[in-house]
């Protein structure tokens, strides 16, 4: 199997999906830019032309509605936000329209829209250019939300998102773009709603998604020498959530940490803790712990950024709190 990077996997998938299905088109800012979206859209304009690879004006609200409308008219748009922070202008169309349409009209027309939202943080970009909005988006009843952590998943989940008949929020992270993985050449899909055990362990379960999976694995590896055996679960899909994989793991380990690089209040950690707390209560030997961002906007200054983003060592210290020596 060829080893390719995460961003190359996305690029390859877009080429293949657009070739396979004439209903698929890409719309949003930066899709024809040499630098805006991390090489993920290379070659698409040349191959498919400006009718299906549409670089738009800075009009997130309007363009999102345009994508919703095209989805209602039997297309399968992939709507890109080169940075999640710019999605707020689009929220009305996403929540009140895309996410509600099928339900509020009694299931007549569906909205097969893929919203591709990129996390792009670090480098002193500060409050308006550093956000991870998976919790806010998972809050919306009509959305499915996926967060691939490997190049293999980046491909498989993108295929599932585009083939899904409902709005799917596909969140990737620029910090993963250079990560390599074995990625089959042909198209394949990964079911939305299935988590995966990335590392087997007996003493404690750490669940994470996207970039935090790599940090969780690093944390687990570093504790192996001390005899702490950490199981790492990649949620892959935040909504629907693979409850069973979490419950099964906690049955075995009795301890649980949920890691999410969003804000803590009413966040992914709160949701996942509630599920594990109510459905795996009898197996727990310790309180559930969360790792998240601090409850503040992102700072610019490097020394503050360094303590702002959770990392392997943040996870390690939480694990140490829970696992007896």
């Amino acid at each position, binding site marked *: 199997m060829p080893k390719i990077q995460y961003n190359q996997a996305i690029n390859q998938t877009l080429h293949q999906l657009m070739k396979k299905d004439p209903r698929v088109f890409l719309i949003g800012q930066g899709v024809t*830019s040499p630098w805006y979206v991390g090489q993920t859209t290379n070659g698409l304009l040349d191959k498919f032309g400006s009718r299906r690879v549409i670089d738009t*004006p800075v009009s997130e609200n309007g363009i999102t509605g345009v994508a919703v409308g095209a989805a209602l008219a039997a297309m399968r748009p992939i709507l890109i936000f080169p940075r999640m*922070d*710019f999605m707020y202008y689009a929220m009305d169309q996403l929540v009140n329209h895309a996410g509600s349409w099928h339900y509020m009209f009694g299931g007549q027309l569906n909205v097969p829209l893929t919203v591709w939202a990129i996390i792009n943080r670090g480098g002193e970009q*500060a409050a*308006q250019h550093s956000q991870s909005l998976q919790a806010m988006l998972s809050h919306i009843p009509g959305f499915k939300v996926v967060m691939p952590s490997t190049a293999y998943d980046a491909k498989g989940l993108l295929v599932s998102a585009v083939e899904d008949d409902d709005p799917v929020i596909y969140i990737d992270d620029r910090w993963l773009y250079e990560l390599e993985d074995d990625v089959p050449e042909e198209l394949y899909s990964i079911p939305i709603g299935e988590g995966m055990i990335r590392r087997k362990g007996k003493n404690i379960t750490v669940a994470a998604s996207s970039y935090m999976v790599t940090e969780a694995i690093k944390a687990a590896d570093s504790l192996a020498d001390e005899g702490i055996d950490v199981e790492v679960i990649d949620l892959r899909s935040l909504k629907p959530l693979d409850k069973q994989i979490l419950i099964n793991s906690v049955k075995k380990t009795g301890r649980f940490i949920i890691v999410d690089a969003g804000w803590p209040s009413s966040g992914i950690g709160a949701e996942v803790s509630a599920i594990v707390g109510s459905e795996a209560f009898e197996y727990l030997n310790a309180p559930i712990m969360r790792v998240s961002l601090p409850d503040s906007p992102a*700072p610019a*200054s490097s*020394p503050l950024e360094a303590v702002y983003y959770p990392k392997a060592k943040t996870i390690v210290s939480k694990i140490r709190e829970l696992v007896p020596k």
Partner: protein
Amino acid sequence: MTERTVDLSSNNLRTMYQTMLRIRLFEEKVGNLIQQNEIVCPCHLYIGQEAVATGVCNALRKDDYVFSSHRSHGHYVAKGGNLNALMAELYGKVTGCSKGRGGSMHLSFPAVGFIGSSAIVAGSISPAVGAALAFSIQKTDNVSVVFFGDGATNEGVWYESLNFAALKKLPVVFVCENNLYSTHVHISDHLADTDIQKKANIFRMRGVQVNGNDVIEVFNVAKKAVKDARRGKGPTLIECMTYRWRGHVGPNDDLETGLRSKEELSYWKEKGPIKKLEKLLLSRNFLSKSEFLQIRREVEKEVDESLMFAKKSPFPSENSLLDNVFKAK
């Protein structure tokens, strides 16, 4: 330059020249510091557009409000923001104007009426209208000004803000810096009608297009717009035709990416705002060669001092991370 030049005292011209040069030399220094990895935060340089900020802010009082965008160093400097605090902010230092929390894209210096810059395109347009609304409720004669780019006129909130400001005759001046690009996209690829000032008319608002590289023209038009706003005659949209010399973000010039031609860039450099004013000042004998040199030396010194200040300032302490989320402790 037009004959309206005679309205301007040589003193005023000297001040504006100094401000433009201050912005230019500061930005050039910043460009170099980015190349040396001294400055980390993303910076959208203002080089080439100095006449807009300078002409407009020169028509304002200290207690008038200015709101700005991601490309805000020039507006901050022209409104009188402290240079040391600006450089320190770019260095992420606690002595920075936003205590190192904001970086280049989030500057603020309320003491001189520089309220803040938002890096969300069009993000500060409606707040500027809101400040004007406050002035009208408070019955003060302050004016609110917002700077934004040609790209920002693609956002729906721009139209909503213009309509509301015109409807309520609010004391706000909309300053659009049309530098022909929105990131990598030429204006002809992002606006169906590139005549921006004209769009004021659909809201029955005055719209004016000016040569944004002519500081005197900008100043005169801004002065009139500000005067109208102060007297309750409502808002004006000023479209300033200008050009950024560097790429969208950072010090490079975007030639290497093929986003624009060398010819286009040299055409606009030739028409640059500082050169233009220098020529006029020389031809009218407003400033001698040695006075030019003296101004340049003074400004270089200010910029160097700001760098020294930034370098020797401390970083914010880690345990201050959660300070300032709320005003109340």
